[in-house]
Structure formats: C-alpha cells, structure tokens
C-alpha cells in the first residue's frame, strides 16, 4: 500500500506517523447511524506495528473501569463547594508563590515553627496538585479515587504532625538525612585527615574515618546533640 514517488507533503506526513494500522471489523460502515463515512486511507503507510487492537475488548475490562465522559450536567459539575473554583485556584497559586520564599528559609532556619509552616505548605500544595492529576488521568476510569486520596492524605498528615510534635521534626530530619554518607567510606565532614600515598604514584589523598552509630541509644544521642563534628570528635575515642 505504500506509494512510490509520493509528494513531499505526503512523505512528510508518513514520516510523522510512526504506525497506524486500523483493522476493520466485518460490519459495514454504511450501516451506521450517522451516514456513510469511509475510513479507507490508502495514503497511510501500512507499517505492521499495530498499537490499537481491532477488538477493544481483547483484554476483558470490567464495565466499571471503562472510561466515562461525565459529569454531564451543570449540577453534577458544580458539586457542593465552599467557594468558586476560580477562588480556589487563586488560593492554590498564592500558596505556591509563598512556597518560593518558604523553601530557602527552611534551609536557613530550622525549628518547630519552620517545621509546621514547611510541612503544611508542602502538604496542602501536594494534596491539591495530586488531586488535579487524579482528575485528569484517573477519575474517568475510577471516580472514587478522590476519596481514597483524601483518606491517604489524612493519614499522612497525621503522621507528619506526630513527627513534628513528638519527634525531631521534618526540617531537622531532612538536614540529618542529607548528611548521610552516600558512599560507604566518605563522610561529608572530615573527622581526622591523614595524608598518604596511593600505590607509589605520588598522588596525595585524604583518608577519612568512618563514624557509625554502634547502638540506637548512641544514635539518639547523636540526633539530640546535633550532628556536628565537634560533638563527634569528643565521642570519637569512645566510639571507634
């Protein structure tokens, strides 16, 4: 079916289309309600990769998970909301712009207030945004996804508040986690530097001692005192 010597426009279109193969069913198109409509396009190249099977139900999909194109009526679309959708959109943008300021200040200041502000702003932003992602892609297949996301986020928010109140708090936690070594042998800040030669090549390297918490109690003390190298130097001899 591929024509030789096609015009430039057609060959450009053929290059643009990677694969398009329609497999026609037995039923004639002319029997359709909306009149005759021919789908035979002989200018389409017949590459053999067929990405859309002719029988859409070759894999049996339960009726419940098929795509819906609703809500249909204005009443369905409005729902029962506290504010206009545009006002809610404005609130979302205000929060997002405020996060541009909150992120760097979370880097400079840690503490309980910063914990709460940081956590709540990120949480609300993520909740609303992921809710919109669900509305775009998942809701048409599975409408209750919004309720499930709401429940999950309630549980996650409870965990975050508990973490901020009864444990170290997210800003301190992220600071500590970021200081974890990403390779086994190198710590970010040096404890004891020794210079040596490697294999006689004359290259000078720094060796760094590795500090590993020997017990949970020690880790707890480490987390209470803060992970500063001065406090570790005092404990170095007793630890290693």
């Amino acid at each position, binding site marked *: 079916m591929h024509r030789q010597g096609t015009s430039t426009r057609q060959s450009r279109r053929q290059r643009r289309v990677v694969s398009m193969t329609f497999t026609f069913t037995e039923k004639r198109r002319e029997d359709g309600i909306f009149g005759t409509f021919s789908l035979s396009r002989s200018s389409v190249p017949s590459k053999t990769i067929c990405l859309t099977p002719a029988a859409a139900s070759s894999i049996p999909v339960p009726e419940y998970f098929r795509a819906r194109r609703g809500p249909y009526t204005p009443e369905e679309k409005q729902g029962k909301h506290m504010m206009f959708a545009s006002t809610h959109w404005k609130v979302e943008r205000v929060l997002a712009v405020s996060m541009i300021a909150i992120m760097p200040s979370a880097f400079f200041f840690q503490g309980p207030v910063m914990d709460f502000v940081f956590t709540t702003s990120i949480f609300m932003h993520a909740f609303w945004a992921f809710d919109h992602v669900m509305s775009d892609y998942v809701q048409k297949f599975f409408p209750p996804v919004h309720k499930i996301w709401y429940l999950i986020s309630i549980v996650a928010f409870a965990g975050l508040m508990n973490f901020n109140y009864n444990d170290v708090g997210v800003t301190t936690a992220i600071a500590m986690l*970021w200081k974890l070594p990403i390779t086994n042998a190198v710590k970010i800040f040096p404890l004891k530097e020794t210079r040596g030669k490697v294999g006689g090549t004359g290259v000078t390297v720094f060796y760094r001692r590795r500090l590993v918490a020997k017990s949970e109690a020690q880790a707890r003390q480490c987390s209470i005192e803060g992970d500063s190298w001065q406090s570790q130097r005092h404990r170095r001899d007793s630890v290693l």
Partner: protein
Amino acid sequence: MAVCFRISSCGKLLAGSKQWMQAGWVPAVMGSTSAQKTANQMDRYWKKNRQLNRPLSPHLSIYKYDVPMVLSISNRITASAVTIAFYLGPLVYLFGGKDFAGYYAMMQSWGPLGHTLIGTTKFSLAFCFSYHFCASIRHFIWDIGQGYAKPQVYQSGYAMLVVTLLMTAGLMYL
C-alpha cells in the same frame, strides 16, 4: 434540537433502511433539558463505540514530541515524584514502628549497597525538587501574562534547565 437535525439528515441518507429506529433506543428522559439530551447523546455514542469494538485512534504514540511539551509533562512527573516521596515518609514512619533515631541508625548501618541507594534517592529528590521549582516559576511568569511568544517559550525553557542543573548540584553538595 441537535438530535432532531441529525435524524432528519440521516433519514435522507438511509433511504429506506430504518434499522436505527427499530433498534429500540429512545432518549432516556423525554421532556429533558438540552444538557441532559446532550448527555444522553454522548452516552449513546460511547456505548455504540464499545459495541462496535472501534479501536482508539493513536495519539501519544504518533504525535511528534517537542521541547515545551516534554518540559511541561516533566514538570508534572517531577511534582508527582516529590509528592509520593513526601507522603511515603510519614506513612512508613506511622506503620514502621521505629522513631526517627531508630531509622537513622538503621540507615547508617547499611552497607555499600544501602548507601548507594541513599545517594540515588538523594539525587532523584534533589533533581525532581529543583526541576519542579524552576518549572513552576516559569509557569508563574505565564500566569502573569508574559513570555508566551514561541522564542521566549524555548529560551525560558532552556534557561530553566540550566538553573535546574545548577540547583541540583548545589543541593547535592550540601
């Protein structure tokens, strides 16, 4: 009203074969509003599609991807990644049974593989956060009303990528 026009035009084309009239479908609500009639029409269209087993037209597989499109969907993908990471933290913490010091000690006692995993996670989070940060600022510029011309879209996109890489490097170095 649109349904009535359709029926009259199809009556001319179908010249005698009134299969659709004998099929037995009738609008579900007779004296309904135009919105409900439209809803019924859409519903019938999709049911008919399913009944005839019509294939879906190729879309994502054939359309040519260009830079602004990829940057836009990457913004959403990185945002979802950060969201999932941010939600997994408290969920693991709630249902894991250790406090933060316990998890910290556990992570410190991991071997080389564990630390490589920590490094990979750190880099992914840093990149996703930085990319989403810069792409969102670009989005805010559009929200103000600036930067819609095509060269500006491409230039701001490339500038955003450079700033993202710098910010990722900065975050990884910390």
